[in-house]
Every structure is written in structure tokens, then in C-alpha cells.
């Protein structure tokens, strides 16, 4: 098994939480893992990305080679496009939230951004904030996106659920339940559309 995942979004959107959840799940299944992060700019509203590599065999490069990303998981639509040069043309999927973070003066019209995503051969775009609000809080939008992406991770759904439980245990059972619901909401949505 080999899975190259690029995570992207804007600083503060919980990308590293997604990475940690996938990482925890992957480790529980005995997979090897490398995860390259970008630090420092995350508090300052800049774009952030992470290269997350899962494999049943030892992994060499921390960085994913260009054109070899199996998945782009993004919590922001403009940021989802920033790394499509990394996405595998034949098999790669792009999973992205449709909710823009307009913290730059020249943010392009949302329709033009979504149009570019919809030109790709394999994608799932989701109104993550609405799904998250439905289960309890907009802050769980990142977990909703993870749920949508879960169909393509080749990890057991139970592993992801166990990872959520581990990640949010300290915040109380309510938080765990909420995030499990968010995960499911994203997954159900993606299931219906693919």
C-alpha cells in the first residue's frame, strides 16, 4: 500500500490535526509514515501545506515527487489548486472544502476558483462549514473534509474513528462524539457523490 497525500489550507484551519489523525490511524495499522510540515507562517494567515506519505514499505523522500500525489485534501478551495501540479494526472483525487478564506485583497471570484477545481477529472467539493454546523460547530469543518477524503485513504474507517477518539479524548466525550459525527457527515457526502 502506498498513499501520497498533500494537505493544504490557510494557517489556523486545522490541517495538522487532519495529518495527525491520518497518521495515528496509519500507525495503528502498522504502516510506515512520513509527514513534512511547514512551520512558522501558520499563525500569520499564510498558506500552509503538509506532505503526508503512507506506505507498507520504508519511505525514502519526505517530499512527495511532482505528479505522484494520490490525494490533495484541502480545507480551502484556492489552496486546493496551489498544488495540483503535484497531483497524479491519471489517478489523483482532489477533496476540498468550498468555503473560501478571503484574507487577501485580491481573492479571485469564488466561481472561478471552483470552476478550476471542477475542470479536474476526479474531485469532491463539499460545503464543509455547513455540514460542520449541522453536527454542532463550524470548527469541525476540517474533520468533515477528512471524512470526505476517508473514502480514498485505503485505511479502515474504524482506524480513523479510533484516531479521532485518541486525538480529542482530552477535550471530553462530547467533543469526541461531535468530531465522529463530522467525520461521518463528510464520508456520507462523498459516498453519495462518487
Amino acid at each position, binding site marked *: 500500500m502506498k498513499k501520497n497525500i498533500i494537505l493544504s489550507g490557510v494557517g489556523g484551519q486545522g490541517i495538522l490535526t487532519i495529518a495527525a489523525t491520518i497518521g495515528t490511524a496509519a500507525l495503528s495499522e502498522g504502516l510506515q509514515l512520513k*509527514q513534512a510540515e511547514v512551520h512558522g507562517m501558520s499563525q500569520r494567515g499564510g498558506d500552509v501545506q503538509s506532505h503526508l506519505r503512507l506506505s507498507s514499505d520504508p519511505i525514502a523522500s519526505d517530499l512527495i515527487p*511532482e505528479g505522484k500525489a494520490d490525494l490533495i485534501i484541502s480545507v480551502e478551495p484556492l489552496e486546493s489548486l496551489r498544488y495540483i501540479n503535484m497531483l497524479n*494526472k491519471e489517478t489523483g483525487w482532489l477533496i476540498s472544502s468550498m468555503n473560501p478564506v478571503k484574507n487577501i485583497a485580491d481573492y479571485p471570484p469564488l466561481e472561478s476558483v471552483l470552476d478550476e477545481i471542477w475542470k479536474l477529472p476526479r474531485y469532491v467539493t463539499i460545503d464543509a462549514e455547513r455540514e460542520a454546523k449541522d453536527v454542532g460547530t463550524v470548527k469541525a469543518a476540517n474533520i468533515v473534509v477528512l471524512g470526505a477524503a476517508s473514502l480514498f485513504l485505503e485505511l479502515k474507517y474504524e482506524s480513523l474513528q479510533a484516531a479521532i477518539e485518541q486525538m480529542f479524548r482530552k477535550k471530553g466525550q462530547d467533543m469526541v462524539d461531535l468530531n465522529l459525527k463530522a467525520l461521518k457527515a463528510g464520508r456520507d457526502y462523498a459516498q453519495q457523490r462518487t
Partner: protein
Amino acid sequence: MPKLLLLGDEAIAQGAMDAGISGVYAYPGTPSTEITEYIQQSKQAKEFNIRSLWSANEKTAMETAIGMSYAGKRALVCMKHVGLNVAADAFINAAITGANGGLVILAADDPSMHSSQNEQDSRFYGKFAQIPTLEPANQQEAYDMTIYAFKLSEKFGVPVLLRVTTRLAHSRAGVERITIHKQNELRLPSDLKQYILLPAIARKQYNALLGKQELFRQEATESGNNEYMDGPDKSKGVIACGIAYNYLVENYENQKVPFPVIKISQYPVPKEMINKLYESVSEVLVLEDGYPIIEELLIGLLNKGKSIRGRLDGTIPRAGELNPKIVGKALGIETSEGFELPKVLTGRPPKLCEGCSHTDSFLALNQSLDNYSKGRVFSDIGCYTLSALKPLESINSCVDMGASITMAIGAADAGLVPSVAAIGDSTFTHSGITGLLDAVNNNSPITVLIMDNSTTGMTGGQDSSALGKVDDIVRGVGVSEDHIRVIKPLRRNHDENVKVFEEELKYEGVSVIIARRECIQTQARRMKEKARLKREAEEVNS
């Protein structure tokens, strides 16, 4: 023990603790900051009393570590590549004094300058100091080599340089820990004169260091950290240093490289191993995540031998970090491509947070300079450097830590009056105080804006050595009381603050304006922690 998922930085930190360090000394600097933070937050460090407070700068950190090593205990010093420039005087001379307790210097380089002013290669410093250098390729090696570094340091009585780059420092993978070593006992050097670098003694020490060079090379041959892997295709041989090795094997199915390969992780490089490769192939490709140091060494001045390919002949771009695609191209492999980036993509550069005090400071400064010609604001390294970008565009220089004040002095000497320096509180105690002293002794017509947000912000909000001390230091250096102004940078104070700036700009002597308001990120974290402790106390009481 089960595997831990650790950043390269964290692996080094864990390795250092397991190696039995008694102290870590550092100043924050990307991508090295996480090493000290990991140790500061670890239970193991508390249990074993490993000291880990931030130092005022990399030079004091380096010297303090030398002191601990003098007393027989193991010390780790951490810094980013340019931090080694600040520590260089102490670093180079620590090789001459030698090490008593193990002394390891970690330099984290930043090829492609993701968050730095340059991409200098710290391996040069290892060569310059004539000490062994280690360069791990992955997180497990980072852990293992940190422990080995301390052993090596004590074996040869010299400091050891450990070098990583951003892509290892900030990448996570599984690491297995080995046994934990006890800390050393307090034990002074057997020769109580070896640290006195008076010429007569220094010459003796220096010759001793020179005498060890062949031993270092022999160790690099025998340690296993430099590995010769033969291959059937002799049309090419590859030398891959540190993390570059990963990019090499990434390009081949099952990581089987057809060419003979030498993986380099320890310097000085083993001559026989490299000669063996050289003799058996038609040309050599050198892969280094940094400057073409080994490449240049092999080419020599006259380039009369076999073809050595790398950055210098354009096989690999001269600047910037390596990645699998660049290395694949250098190997002549068809590399894959993804989709074309759409035109709609706009940049999303980092900017000052909403509500940052620096914005208010610079808005006031900008307005006060309305009637002066542009180009007179010299700045420094920190979050406030982002004011160079739109919409503020407040500053005209950022060169190295502390240069804001001293450049302002020089520009004023040249006739640019008034000159303004904009510096943060942590940068000020790092290396601004001496500049301010020069300004006072020079009676320079400069206005120094110290932006005191009471933290080391850009690197993540570490404790600032300046906390509570800025005003006294400024006074102590001799700035006249009338021209030390303290303002609170807030939107509602804007007009009042502009007046302060305008008055001090007119003054033909040293003015210091201290703009004080806590960093909102640090404040938020502090409040959160306060609330959490309060909740815990309430739970205990109920």
C-alpha cells in the same frame, strides 16, 4: 519501547536527552526551534533536571555550553544556520580549547530560504573549525547520530557539529529509542590551562587539533555513517550527502539504484571510499542539499579529471533545496508532472495578525515620516519584518540580527538624517544593545523604535530575554531620559503616538521610542493556560 512519531528536530532532542545531556542552550531560529521546545516540555528533562532556558543569543548559548563542557557535563547547542554566524567566534575557538564533557552543536540549515535571509551551508563551519560533522538523512539517523555525536566528542575531546536541513527538521517519521545514558559527573579538565587561549597555549592546542584530523577521517571511514553501495551500471557513480540520499533512492523502484552509490553522513569524508567509487565509474554525480562543497572538493581547482556533475555544471540548479524531481532530472529519469497551475491562483503571503501591535506602530511611524523623503527606515528580524509588504511598506532594510540600529548610525553619518531603526524586544537584547551603545557614544541623530510585544514572536512566541528590562537597559546605555518615550501602539492612540514620533524625529540625537503591547498570540495562549489552571484548581477543590 514503541516507536515515537517525531520531527527530525524532536528526534535530535530525544537523542540528546537519551545521550545524557545536562543542558541545552539555544536562541529560537527556524528550523531549529522545536528541539529546545521539545526538551523544555518533556517530563524526562524535568525528572533529570536538564536545564533548557532560552539564551539571549547564539553566542551566549555557545559559550555557556562550553562552560558546561569545561565542567565535564554534556551540552547541546542549537541554532539555525545564520545563528552559527553569531556563535562563530566561540564555536571556532571551542575546537581549539577542545571539549571536556561532550559538546554538540546543532545547525539547522534552510536551503531555499523558506524563512531565512540566505541558504548558507553549515558544513563549511565544520570544515573551518576542523571538527567532525554529522549529517543524518532521516529521523532515526537524527536520533542515533545525536547520541553518537556526544560519544565522538568525548572520544576525541572536540566539539562535534550536527547538521540538518528544513525538510528533515520539520518532517515526522517513526523513531525507535535505545538505552538512556546517565549524565556525567562534575569533572574539570585534567589540564587546567587548556582553555586559556594565550598564544603559547593556543599553538599547542591547535597543533593537537591538527594532529587529530586523520583520526577524524579514519573514524568517518569506520563508523558506518558513510556507506558504499555497489551497483552494476558503472556509467555513473553517485555521492549523496544527508537527506539527498532519500531523493536519490525515491527515483528507483524498490529503492534499488543501478549505479554505485556512496551515502555520506559523516565528515571529513573518507578518501579511500571516494577514490574507489571514482576509479570504478565514468562520471560522478554529487547530490548535496546545500552548497556544492563535496562537488567542489572533487573537482579541485583545475577540473582535470573525470566529469563531476552537480550544481556547478548546471546538472542541478545552483540555488535552492533538492527534491525528488530535481534529482530525477539529474539522473536522466523521466519525471512525472501533475496538472498545470491555473491562472486564477494568487499568492497568499504571510502577514501581520489582525490586531497586531506592530501594525499600529508602523501606521504611526508611516504618518510621522510623511514629510520626509523615503528610504530611511532600517529594520531587523522578526514579525515586524512583514511590514515591508503592502499595505504598510514601512521599512527599507533587514540584514542580520541587530543591524537596524547600527545601519541607522552609518546612514546618519553619511548624512541621511534623521535615520530610523525599527527593532523588536527580543532582537534588541539579542544584538541591539551594543548598537545602541555605539549610537549614544556617537550621539547619532537616529530614532530607535523598539517594538516590545514581550515575546520572540516570529518563531512561535518563545520567552524574550528582554522581558521587563528594556527601559532600564536603554537608560543604562545612556540615552537621555527626555528622549526615552513609551507609547502603547493602539488605533485609538494613533494621533498621540504620531506626535511622539514627530517630536523625536526632529531631535538631533539618540531617541528611543518603546512601543509596548503584548503580542496577541502570546496573550491568547497565556489567557488560555490561565483559564485551564483555574479550572483544574476548581476541580481539585470541589
